[in-house]
């Protein structure tokens, strides 16, 4: 059985000028993108392809919160994201490497937090 692929274009579906980390930073922040677009698409069980092209640039805080937040806040597993979440950027492939860094860092942060919780209990 093949899992349907849902495509999300940040520029077309969300904003050409994504900006900020948290909702209080503005309506086009990484948190809002994650909560309103990315997480619901992944929660539906579909595979998700995020198209990063067409915007007027990204700040690292937007990218970290949108993607790293999937692990830190939405409790998605790294393995699940590896199998169902894909990115594309013809204009700047280095963005894909950067996002994977955020996912790896969020995973490490998350497991360090759960290890310290275990050692306290």
């Amino acid at each position, binding site marked *: 059985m093949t899992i349907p692929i849902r495509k999300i274009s940040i520029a077309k579906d969300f904003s050409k000028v994504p*900006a900020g980390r948290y909702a209080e930073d503005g309506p086009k922040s990484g948190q809002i993108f994650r909560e309103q677009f990315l997480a619901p698409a992944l929660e539906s069980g579909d595979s998700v392809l995020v198209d990063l092209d067409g915007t007027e640039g990204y700040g*690292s*805080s937007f990218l970290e919160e949108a993607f790293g937040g999937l692990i830190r806040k939405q409790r998605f597993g790294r393995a699940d994201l590896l199998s169902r979440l894909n990115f594309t950027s013809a204009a*700047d492939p280095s963005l894909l490497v950067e996002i994977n860094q955020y996912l790896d860092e969020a995973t490490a942060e998350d497991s360090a937090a759960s290890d310290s919780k275990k050692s306290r209990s």
Partner: protein
Amino acid sequence: MDDSFWKGLTFGAVAGSLAIELIRQFFGRVMRRSAEKGEIQRKLIREDIESLASKVMPLLSLAQEYYGKPSHQGKELAQKLKADLQVFANAWNLLDTRIVESRFPTIGNAPLISFRRSLTGLLDRTRPNALDINDPVAVAIFNATAKVQEALSKAKYLAA
């Protein structure tokens, strides 16, 4: 042996040495052209690296201008910084592809990613004052800028 044998032998020897000379000249020309082409290619790559390197300091200045004032005064600067970084990243990726196609060692994108991460680390976050020069974000910006310049200098040296 008759006369025609010696004539044939002489003709064969002359034709043979002529053919060898023609082949030598042909390969000599091919090698020279290939060396000239290689030199032109290296020169173009070095020029492109220089051109990309010349964009690093303007990006740093833009970041300094943005972080040098409270965030609410720098919304346009923040957007310009993101857009200029995107253009820079695009040029970096294209240049690196050409470098690899020309069989020089890749610059890689690690310095580019650190540079972008540091420059945009606090972008769009509410900040009532200018960023202190000793703030870790400011320090990270200077370090990442130095690494980008170092990577481009190294690439230029290797393409010489």
